[in-house]
């Protein structure tokens, strides 16, 4: 714990902030996207923007697995949970995410569906083993960080000879999403989003390493600094990005060297490659169809694929009119620019997943930054 406290030291932060202010060129304007919702929350939780000079702006990215899951997939999961004999295992983040017409897994559970909150993919395997009469489905979501545990759960279930365990796979890939943003009209043609660099994912990069970012750093001439999730990590990464921009460099740098290597976790990668293959295309909330951006189970593991075990088809779902999650996920809008924010959309009655996910940008604004929406008041006004 002492270890973590060192990365939250206010005195070090003030020194780092001074250095950023000194090196950021007046009038230049630096706009960096933090891809990960984990970064968005660290930035908001520690009030990190208060330490940055006015020339540096942080733009929030789509790196929240719950937020980018289309409503149709939530609806499918809810329908699955409602089937007799099915036990749906899910991470806590998904319980309150709104599906169509105000449905959610939390409400489905209250209505009698067997929805269980788990902490680890292997918990679902344990449930399947303990309750052989139930069809246990793991609602698997997440970027590269949570994919290896899902792969492991499938392999363990296979070794155990379980026939009542399947995975409803929604795993998505970070590099594909970043590339999609860089190729989007907002960035390329319209210029409505100017991005000068990326704060790269922390946990995702521990798995995939720093190499996968090299392609678009070169191709799109954007610097990437892989950053830890602690606030000092983020400040240091901002400083590294400012320096790259000042020098006209666009490299992949690794601030999070204490956990991330160039090649990543090869054991985890092998597990993932053994069990999963690329989907040709997958719908992302906010980004639309993104080619080769998601995973599904290989046919060799087809018996563990909920989409093959059950006849599932995503039904067309409609977003709540006026919900700006899509624009927020692309960095085009800030949560406070959404008319629903704080009026009809709150964590208690979320209209979009960005408000309810613990990594969502709207949730970060609501939880930590709402006071910034009003004129500043004196300390003891």
């Amino acid at each position, binding site marked *: *714990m002492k270890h973590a406290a060192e990365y939250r030291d206010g005195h070090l932060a003030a020194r780092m902030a001074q250095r950023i202010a000194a090196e950021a060129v007046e009038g230049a304007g630096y706009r960096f996207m933090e891809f990960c919702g984990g970064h968005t929350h660290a930035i908001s939780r520690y009030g990190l923007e208060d330490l940055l000079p006015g020339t540096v702006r942080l733009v929030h990215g789509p790196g929240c697995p719950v937020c980018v899951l289309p409503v149709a997939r939530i609806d499918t999961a809810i329908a699955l949970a409602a089937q007799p004999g099915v036990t749906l295992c899910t991470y806590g983040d998904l319980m309150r995410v709104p599906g169509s017409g105000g449905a959610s897994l939390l409400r489905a559970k209250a209505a009698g569906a067997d929805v269980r909150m788990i902490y680890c993919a292997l918990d679902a395997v344990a449930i399947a083993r303990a309750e052989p009469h139930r069809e246990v489905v793991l609602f698997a979501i997440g970027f590269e960080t949570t994919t290896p545990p899902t792969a492991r759960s499938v392999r363990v279930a296979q070794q155990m000879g379980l026939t009542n365990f399947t995975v409803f796979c929604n795993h998505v890939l970070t590099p594909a999403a970043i590339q999609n943003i860089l190729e989007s009209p907002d960035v390329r043609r319209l210029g409505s989003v100017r991005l000068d660099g990326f704060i790269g994912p922390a946990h995702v990069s521990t798995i995939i390493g720093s190499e996968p970012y090299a392609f678009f750093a070169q191709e799109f001439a954007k610097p990437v600094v892989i950053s830890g999730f602690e606030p000092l990590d983020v400040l240091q990464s901002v400083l590294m990005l400012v320096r790259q921009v000042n020098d006209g460099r666009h490299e992949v740098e690794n601030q999070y060297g204490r956990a991330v290597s160039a090649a990543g976790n090869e054991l985890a990668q092998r597990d993932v490659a053994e069990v999963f293959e690329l989907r040709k295309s997958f719908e992302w909330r906010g980004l639309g169809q993104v080619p080769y951006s998601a995973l599904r189970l290989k046919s060799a593991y087809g018996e563990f694929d909920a989409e093959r075990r059950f006849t599932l088809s995503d039904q067309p779902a409609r977003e709540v009119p006026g919900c700006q999650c899509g624009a927020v996920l692309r960095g085009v809008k800030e949560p406070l620019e959404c008319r629903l924010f704080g009026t009809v959309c709150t964590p208690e009655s979320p209209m979009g997943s960005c408000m309810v996910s613990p990594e969502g940008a709207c949730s970060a604004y609501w939880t930590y930054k709402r006071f910034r929406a009003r004129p500043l*008041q004196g300390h003891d006004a």
Partner: protein
Amino acid sequence: MSRAQYRPLDVRAGRVDLSHGAGGRAMAQLIRQVFHPALDNEWLRQGNDQAAFDVEGGRMVMTTDGYVISPLFFPGGDIGSLAVHGTINDVAMAGAAPRFLSASFILEEGFPLADLERIARSMGDAARAAGIAVVTGDTKVVERGKADGVFICTTGIGLVPGGLEIFPERIRAGDRILLSGSLGDHGVAVMSRRHDLHFETALVSDSAPLHELVRAMVEAGGHAVHAMRDPTRGGLAATLNEIAAQAGVGMRLREAAIPVKPAVAAACELLGLDPLYVANEGKLVAFVAESAAPAVLEAMRAHPLGAEAALIGEVVADAQHFVQMTTEFGGERMVDWLSGEQLPRIC
């Protein structure tokens, strides 16, 4: 009546069955053998359906609370002691001296009598240590599966010393916010024993009766102590937001001043929780006029239950009733209500 029903309860190996709540001899036996010895006092001994007592004139306070904690036994306490401390504290937060408690037990068929006796004894010990009496009670038994072992409801009555007025409407901008000790000990200690989390910690619950601490604070600060509350469910964050809305004020906190034990901080880090939202059962937060704050803080620190007390912030004028905090890192954030339960994160 057959002789069998006069045989003493097998408290060591027996279990609660439906007859223990049926109003017959089995229930009377349970009360006589388990509850009376554990909770014994002159009122309970009378065996009436109600307790009668004379009180001096003045203001009385009354509160009620249901206890449904899982697991029933946790490091630093159990549902019995908690049901005494929690209700004492709700009484004490009005500046009142707690006097009498009632206790209502809802038992699940099959619950081990040995556990019930342990809980009743723990309740009796907690009440005696706090100098108050459980003067009346009730027992019901529900079928297996209709409850989680045992639920306890306690109601408390206390007397407020003459002229004392302690409630949120008295809070003013400029008041100092005092916290009696470290956050999250109870919540983390209980979570560590939940079967789905199972982590090792030496932490114990902070469950404790706070009325003596309150008395010391009132002696030191008198009317300058404007309001108090114990941050239980929802943690300090929920309590401060609740009071900000009730008193029509805002609050500014300093994160660096808020005591959190390293073990609590580490567990919260691991589980993705924020100590500001984790439950406490032996802490209070007080709103005190600026001039009296140093004296009240000193009185708190002189009491064993307030040894780590700290000045954590101020009350400010704010039409939106926001609770804001300067983080240890130097930036500003809101401290909002908790939405739903604190859920574990996925990555």
